């Protein structure tokens, strides 16, 4: 099987500040990877490097032609709460932006585009906000809109940086189910950064655990079995974060 | 390249702000003084910033000549910055009094806050009679500063005033024969004292003498109508600025554009070729003749 992209001996810096080095791993099409690690461990930086937003200090990343040029990537940044509340953009305008990658030339929208926008907004439970100004939404509502923007173009690769941090529990569950469907049925590859180990355990297939280097990369079950979980999260963590597993084991 | 590097001479150093005084000093004193023009050619007082040596030059000079605070408000500050020995000649002295309206307010003592009096036209040099008065002021000042050449200055001054008188006579004579006495002027009208002297009518799109007010469309329309009605289709424009208004009117009416030079300042070439006030005024005479008479 051919890789979707390969990260090879990557190092990332901000100025003279080294964030991480010797990062090597590969992502296969159809993967659903939870990315976790302590604050400041380099999750956001790694993701930005994968998306081409942060130039590598060393090493390189090679992409499969299907996602090269980024025409088929959906992205939700960590800073999902829009800082500029004055910006005049309606929710549907922001979401429609996600469709532009697939267009050429003048990149005008057509009727089917607006249908797609409405469809994804409904899926995320914010259909009635379509005509609101983005700056007037609550934190969680904004996060959902940006999720919709990441997903509207049905990308082959979804890169989500703490997508559920501001979502209420109901929507969070629905969102994870949606992601599961996309991954299972449409074969979308997903990279999901989260501090919510329970959800990672419950929904994703693989775990990439970072701490300025790769601590663990493999299936979540292995992580639970390996000593790493206890080492990082304390003795109770097994019970807490390997929830579905611990209950199976009981 | 600075004036202070000129070979040391014992000549009197004179600094003037505008071209007319500069030329008057040349005519009066010839090579007995070193006269320099403070404002570089073509530079509006707006964009003008002195360099430290400019100021040192003014301070090192014996005489500083300016037109008056309406023409050069910044000159006041240069004067204030000077320490002592400098002799300051306000070349408009006496003329202001002649021109004064009845309702003229007394200055309230604080000359910081003095402002221009509306209706007071600073372009006095364009009236040859006032120009003679300016020459008197300059002669008096130079004589005071350089007593040993005083006689020379007085006699040169008298000769030059005579020339100005001849100029005045020529204007009077020419305008006496003119078919029309209307100057259609597309710039800031500097020729107020000139027009009063010779009983000319004038029309300009600008209302003030300083270039702050924009023209209104009706004024431009009026100018167009005036050109259309006039016998000689001529529109005059001012020196050293891009004559946009004149061009537009000329385009609409087919009028001929003629330069009427108000002599505030001259171009670099003119300055180095040694053009004089009298030459400029003779040029104006010709242009006006062309507009006022038949051919």
């Amino acid at each position, binding site marked *: 099987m051919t890789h979707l992209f390969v990260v090879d001996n990557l190092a990332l810096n901000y100025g003279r500040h080294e964030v991480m080095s010797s990062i090597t791993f590969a992502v296969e099409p159809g993967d659903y990877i939870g990315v976790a690690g302590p604050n400041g461990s380099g999750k956001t930086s790694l993701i930005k490097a994968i998306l*081409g937003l942060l130039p590598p200090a060393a090493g390189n990343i090679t992409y499969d032609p299907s996602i090269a040029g980024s025409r088929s990537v959906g992205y939700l940044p960590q800073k999902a709460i829009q800082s500029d509340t004055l910006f005049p953009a309606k929710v549907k305008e922001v979401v429609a932006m996600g469709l532009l990658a697939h267009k050429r030339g003048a990149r005008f*929208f057509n009727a089917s585009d607006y249908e797609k926008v409405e469809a994804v907004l409904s899926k995320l439970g914010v259909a009635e906000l379509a005509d609101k100004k983005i700056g007037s939404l609550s934190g969680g509502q904004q996060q959902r809109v940006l999720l919709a923007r990441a997903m509207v173009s049905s990308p082959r690769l979804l890169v989500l940086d703490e997508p559920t941090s501001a979502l209420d529990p109901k929507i969070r569950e629905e969102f994870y189910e949606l992601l599961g469907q996309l991954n299972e049925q449409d074969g979308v590859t997903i990279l999901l950064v989260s501090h919510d180990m329970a959800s990672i355990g419950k929904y994703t297939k693989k775990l990439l655990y970072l701490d300025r280097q790769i601590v663990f990369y493999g299936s979540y079950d292995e992580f639970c079995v390996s000593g790493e979980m206890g080492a990082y999260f304390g003795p109770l963590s097994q019970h807490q974060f390997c929830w579905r597993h611990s209950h199976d084991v009981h | 390249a600075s004036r202070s590097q000129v070979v040391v001479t014992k000549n009197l150093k004179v600094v003037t702000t505008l071209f007319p005084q500069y030329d008057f000093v040349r005519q009066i004193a010839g090579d007995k003084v070193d006269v320099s023009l403070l404002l570089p050619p*073509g530079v509006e007082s707006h*964009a003008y910033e002195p360099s430290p040596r400019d100021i040192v030059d003014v301070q090192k000079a014996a005489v500083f000549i300016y037109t008056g605070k309406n023409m050069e408000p910044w000159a006041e500050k240069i004067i204030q910055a000077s320490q002592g020995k400098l002799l300051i000649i306000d070349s408009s002295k006496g003329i202001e009094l002649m021109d004064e309206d009845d309702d003229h307010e007394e200055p309230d003592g604080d000359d910081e806050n003095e402002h221009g009096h509306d209706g007071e036209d600073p372009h006095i040099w364009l009236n040859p009679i006032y120009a003679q008065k300016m020459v008197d002021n300059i002669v008096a000042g130079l004589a005071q500063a350089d007593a040993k050449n005083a006689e020379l200055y007085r006699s040169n001054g008298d000769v030059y005033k005579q020339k100005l008188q001849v100029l005045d006579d020529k204007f009077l004579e020419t305008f006496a024969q003119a078919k029309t006495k209307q100057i259609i002027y597309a710039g800031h009208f500097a020729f107020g004292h000139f027009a009063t002297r010779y009983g000319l009518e004038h029309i300009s799109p600008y209302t003030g003498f300083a270039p702050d007010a924009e023209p209104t469309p009706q*004024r431009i*329309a009026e100018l167009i109508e005036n050109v259309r009605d006039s016998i000689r289709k001529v529109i005059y424009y001012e020196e050293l600025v891009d004559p946009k208004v004149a061009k537009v009117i000329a385009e609409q009416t087919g009028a001929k554009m003629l330069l009427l030079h108000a002599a505030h300042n001259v171009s670099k070439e003119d300055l180095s070729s040694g053009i004089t006030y009298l030459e400029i005024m003779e040029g104006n005479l010709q242009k006006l003749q062309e507009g006022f008479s038949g051919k």
Partner: protein
Amino acid sequence: MTYIELAFEALQYDFIRRALLVGSLIALCCAFLGTFLVLRKLSMIGDGLAHVSFATVALALLLSASPLLVSIPLVILASFAILGLSEKAELHGDAAIGLVSSFSIAVGVLIASIAKGFNVDLMSYLFGSILVISQSDVIISVALSVVVLVIVVFFFNSLFAVTYDEEFARVMGFNTRFLNYLIAVLTSITIALGIRVVGTMLISSLIVFPTVTALQVAKGFKMTIVISAFVSVACVIIGVFTSYILNLPTGATIVLANAVTFALSFSIRRLRIV
């Protein structure tokens, strides 16, 4: 004469018709670009580039070259410098404008001083008035405005994306560099031309006022740009006629018309009518 008659009288003059035509086209360009500029905190770019033009005209006169030919490329360069500084030096747009504009004035003054003067008044060379547009300026303005408008419409969605969220636009494979420089070039051309044809005062106002007016009442981006364009053109037309009828300076009257429109839309928002 009634106002209507006066308005018809005004229309018989070439210079009024030119003011209406060129004014409306430049207003349209300014409204289109203004929305992007204001949202990128480049509201004062009209003012800043006017200062740059001052320096370029000084340079042109020093080199005895045509001011417009020297001005346009240098103004474009200056707008690249503004962009570059705000990226590389991590400045807000307005600080970058401040840097470039102060620096340019200083350079202009230095050139004027070194050249020991010019043969023409720098400012008059540069600054136009909407009433006195020459035949050749009409042609250039119409041609360039049409080009600017077509390009903005063509790239509309891309420009919106890069203005709203540059990082996201990059992820989606947009050439954000190209789009940024595109805006810079279009803005420079519009402003350099606008300063010469209608003056700095008017060009600066036309960039800021209509957009800010639209921002008071519009929720979406497309709406903002449409309202802005409408307000901008309407104010030019109203301003030209009003100034003729009331015998006021035209540029200033257009700015006042814009100010009144802004006050209206501000009140609408405050009173929550919309």
